[in-house]
């Protein structure tokens, strides 16, 4: 049985869960059934993704592999008379290594997070609603992932944005949550405008939305002049918004107002990675334009650096993680931007990052669980010395920290450091600058992560609250994710040539891309890269240990005239919120004054006139309706009379000339 045909069920199963919960709402209310429904359908989707993944894996190692698999359905098909292009839009799914592994990751992580949410959301009045939104989100994310054309991708793209909005504002009674939801919506939408414009120009030039069809076209010939770098950059705008890259990163830290599982799933593991995925999916547009690639790389590395500096000074544990997410996404963009050499590593980082970042968020949720009566349960001022009280959380959190900071043998060591080294390997002078900045950021990463870790779990502070370990339903996903944070990296250290059986697994899996984009494969062991990676990890660790592990020694350092302005800059988030506020107000002021002038002088009169006019006509027509049946007959009769005169006088011959 060729069950790969059922791959379209992967996004449809979570949709079914969503519909079931929505329509069964009143039966599920106040019970856990909705969570079971979500998890069941999600698991089914995960199993299906596994099958698809294995199938693709097998296909590639046989001779029968003949490019990506697509299933398409006609969506809108209009014949039309002359003058208008026949419109034939399709929807369909595309199964290739990239989408298969992404779908696998999304379903896997979301299943674990849903299991975790049973414990976390226990007793919340919006329990069922929460799970329905989560299912809808997973469906949208999978649509985006598996789509074979821009149109469906865009639909999924907007739908994940909507779900993110709903879930950030889930506790909408908190004003900050409502505000953050709107901010996230507006900021990401700014980027989407670019995406939409780029997509439409591309359709106009190529006549199709299909990824594969476009990638087979001779693009440099079709897209001349500025379009060659303009289109990829317009599409990159969408990625900048969704993946929270500079300068549109400002929404992500505020998005932490949502429930923690939402932060873990949407704002760490999946949705924010969608921007990276989009760039990877449309990489055929980027590789033809070095300019576009350079912009991507620089935005990526600068975002990584800036976010890391801000993460250094945050006191809210979830905000530290949010900035770290932005920083890691910057690394992924860097990997894509340095050219094909970093492509595979960027994807690899995307996957491993999903595991350890989800784990970090869930761990933070677990940590904050006992503090839920505080005004801000995520404030690290409350924490300290939690190691003894929450051993499971502690150990899993440690694994994630080691993974993200690049401790040898953990996932980040293989993925993140590979991305950094790919910048070095590309042997372009400017790229070496990128590499330097990226390496320094790796040091900062190590520093801020351990700062957070020490502040939370070490120290001698005795917590005021009755601290307890979280329930098993929350711990179990943590443990699974911890295992993957450790071994996740082992599947892809080909670049280090350590010659284990699965040593170049990710590279082999990505083989179609390696061939498509002519990705050079290195055959030497890069001792220097490994050494430097380990070095910056250790440097960051010791910096944090010296400053934070043994009580707080940094207070005096803050008074140092050199450090103080930087500290101020970081605490104020590089004044980015103010920057946008200024732009908005300047722009808004200019625009609004023009608009108000037009409004008062031009439109208002007209609109009011039209409004009164239509209203007046409406009332007049209504007053004809007297309820007197013979009057209706009379009007019909008058109409008949007019029509008869129209015929008998030959008026139709006269009017026919106009058509």
């Amino acid at each position, binding site marked *: 049985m060729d069950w790969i045909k059922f791959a379209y069920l992967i996004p449809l199963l979570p949709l079914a869960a969503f519909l079931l919960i929505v329509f069964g709402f009143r039966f599920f209310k106040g019970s856990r059934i909705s969570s079971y429904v979500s998890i069941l359908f999600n698991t089914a989707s995960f199993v299906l993704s596994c099958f698809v993944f294995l199938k693709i894996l097998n296909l590639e190692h046989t001779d029968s592999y003949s490019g990506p698999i697509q299933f398409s359905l006609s969506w809108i098909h*209009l014949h039309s008379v002359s003058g208008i292009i026949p419109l034939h839009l399709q929807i369909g799914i595309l199964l290739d290594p990239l989408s298969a592994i992404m779908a696998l990751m999304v379903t896997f992580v979301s299943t674990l997070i849903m299991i975790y949410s049973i414990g976390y959301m226990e007793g919340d009045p919006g329990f069922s609603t929460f799970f329905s939104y989560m299912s809808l989100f997973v469906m949208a994310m999978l649509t985006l992932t598996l789509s074979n054309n821009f149109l469906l991708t865009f639909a999924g793209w907007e739908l994940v944005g909507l779900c993110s909005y709903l879930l950030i504002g889930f506790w909408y009674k908190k004003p900050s949550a409502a505000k953050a939801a709107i901010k996230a919506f507006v900021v990401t939408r700014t980027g989407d405008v670019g995406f939409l414009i780029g997509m439409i120009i591309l359709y106009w030039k190529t006549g199709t939305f299909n990824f594969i069809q476009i990638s087979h076209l001779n693009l440099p010939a079709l897209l001349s002049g500025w379009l060659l770098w303009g289109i990829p950059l317009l599409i990159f705008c969408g990625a900048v918004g969704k993946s929270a890259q500079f300068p549109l990163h400002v929404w992500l830290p505020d998005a932490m107002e949502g429930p923690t599982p939402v932060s873990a799933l949407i704002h760490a593991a999946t949705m924010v990675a969608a921007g990276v995925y989009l760039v990877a999916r449309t990489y055929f547009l980027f590789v033809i334009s070095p300019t576009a690639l350079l912009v991507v790389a620089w935005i990526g590395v600068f975002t990584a650096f800036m976010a890391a500096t801000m993460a250094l000074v945050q006191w809210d544990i979830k905000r530290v993680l949010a900035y770290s997410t932005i920083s890691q996404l910057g690394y992924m963009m860097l990997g894509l931007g340095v050219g094909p050499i970093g492509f595979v590593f960027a994807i690899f980082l995307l996957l491993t990052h999903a595991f350890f970042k989800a784990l970090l968020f869930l761990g933070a949720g677990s940590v904050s669980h006992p503090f839920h009566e505080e005004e801000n349960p995520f404030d690290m001022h409350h924490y300290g010395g939690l190691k003894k009280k929450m051993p499971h959380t502690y150990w899993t959190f440690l694994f994630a920290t080691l993974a993200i900071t690049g401790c040898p043998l953990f996932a980040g060591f293989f993925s993140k450091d590979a991305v950094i080294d790919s910048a070095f390997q590309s042997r372009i002078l400017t790229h070496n600058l990128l590499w330097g900045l990226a390496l320094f950021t790796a040091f900062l990463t190590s520093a801020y992560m351990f700062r957070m870790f020490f502040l939370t779990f070490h120290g001698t502070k005795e917590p005021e609250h009755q601290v307890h370990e979280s329930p098993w339903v929350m711990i179990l996903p943590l443990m699974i994710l911890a295992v993957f944070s450790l071994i996740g990296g082992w599947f892809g250290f080909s670049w280090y040539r350590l010659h284990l059986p699965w040593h170049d697994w990710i590279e082999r899996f990505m083989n179609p891309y390696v061939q498509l984009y002519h990705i050079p494969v290195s055959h030497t062991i890069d001792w220097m890269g490994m050494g430097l990676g380990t070095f910056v990890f250790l440097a960051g660790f010791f910096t944090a240990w010296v400053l934070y592990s043994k009580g707080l020694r940094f207070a005096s350092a803050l008074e140092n005239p050199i450090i103080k302005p930087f500290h101020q800059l970081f605490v104020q988030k590089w004044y980015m919120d103010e920057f946008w506020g200024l732009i908005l107000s300047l722009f808004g002021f200019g625009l609004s004054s023009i608009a108000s002038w037009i409004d008062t002088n031009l439109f208002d009169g007209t609109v009011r006139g039209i409004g009164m006019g239509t209203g007046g006509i409406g009332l007049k027509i209504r007053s*004809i309706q007297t309820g007197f049946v013979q009057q209706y007959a009379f009007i019909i009769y008058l109409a008949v009379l007019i029509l008869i005169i129209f015929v008998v006088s030959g008026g139709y011959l006269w009017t026919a000339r106009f058509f």
Partner: protein
Amino acid sequence: MKGSHLIIFIPEIAVLSLALLLLIFDWVTPKGKKVWIGYFSAVMILVFMGGFLCLAKNRFFPYAASFHGFVFDAFALYFKELFLLVVFLATLFSVNFFKQDDEGQGEYYALLLFVTLGCFLLVSSADLLMLFLSFEMMSIPLYVMCAYRKKDSKSSESGLKYFLIGAITSALLLYGISLVYAATGTTNLHAFIEGLVSANKLAYNPILLLGLILMLCAFCFKIAAVPFHMWAPDVYEGAPAPVVAFLAVSPKIAVIGLMTRLFLAGMQPLQPFWVFLFAVLAAFTMTVGNLTALFQQNLKRLLAYSGIAQIGYILVGFASIQPFFKNMPTLQLGYQAILFYLAAYLFSDLAAFGIVTYLSAHGIEDVKSLKGLAEKNPMIAFLFLISLLSLAGVPPLVGFVGKFYLFLAAVSSRLYWLALLGVVNSVISLFYYLRVARTMYFEKEEGVSIPYPSFSMQVALLVAVLGILIIGIYPFMITHFSLQVLTPLSNVPISHVMK
């Protein structure tokens, strides 16, 4: 006529037998079990729907067959499936409108089926006599059903108004038919069309045009096009709610189907004459419907005017059918758009009327009394919102896709002003749909909560709303089917006639 030829009448025979069976059932069902009559009817209708589809797939889908003024083809079958869907939903709406032991339930459902039979015959008719009879078959039971609530003077008045206007237009139709017969010497549509096509001179025979105009007036009455629309709001307001749901959809679809068949089969020579008429009718119907709806407080009246506006949009499709495009008439967007919009209208309007039926059973008749509905009953409010947004044409719901096709058709026929007017009208219509939505969602009122709808109502609403969503998201289902349905109709008028 051989016995085996009866197969082309299977849909009609099935519906007629079910109607008669229900009458007998009403007689033998003991008191206290009467409610099952409705369920039985609904289940049987569902069986018919499946059965006809299977028949179509296996036996005679690509073929067209006719027997003396009765045509059976894929086009008719498409409409018959739509009618069955309407009567299925209307039956489910009605189940809880009756009290448990009410008399006359069997008759009521039988009358619904008789109207459906009339609609069946209308889209299958290829003879003016057949057309007239099926037109009457469609109307007479509806007159009765409008006045079905006998103790309510509003219901009687509604029946009277519908009857009087209906009878007058029947007389117009009949007189028109007699004039058409005078001009062409035949009542058979195919003979008539052959005559039209072969002799263009006939097309400008004033007697023929007079006859056709009078017939058109009768059709316009049924579909409530301006200025033949004035009965609609009054009748809708007074008639029982489930009857209105049925009345607002089935006959309109049937008449539009008949008009499509007439055009597709051979009104092309008369096209320059029609296009102006339909453009003007469409413009007036849309605009008057929407403007008047702005001020309506009563929900049924609001939906009546909204339905008038919807018909205006469909007439845009008729106006954009282009003249002298004989080689590929079905490739014209106009036909496809009309067929698609009918399905869109069916789902959206039935969902809205279903909810109005449910609300009126709980004493809510006005927009004002919807206050706080979103708090009291979020599911109903949500479903109502979806159906209203679909009527307004908001993506990704089915109404949007339908309007998109219609206006695209108008643009492709260079009727830019009409397309523009249509868009402006859609915007105007948003005002009153959103007024309802605002009342439901943002105006608070403490009050008793409204119970959840009954099982049958839930099933019906679910079907309608899922239709809105699924076809809206994946319109190819219907566009593909409508293309299949249209193609044989235009290429081969009627290939073989059974003797």
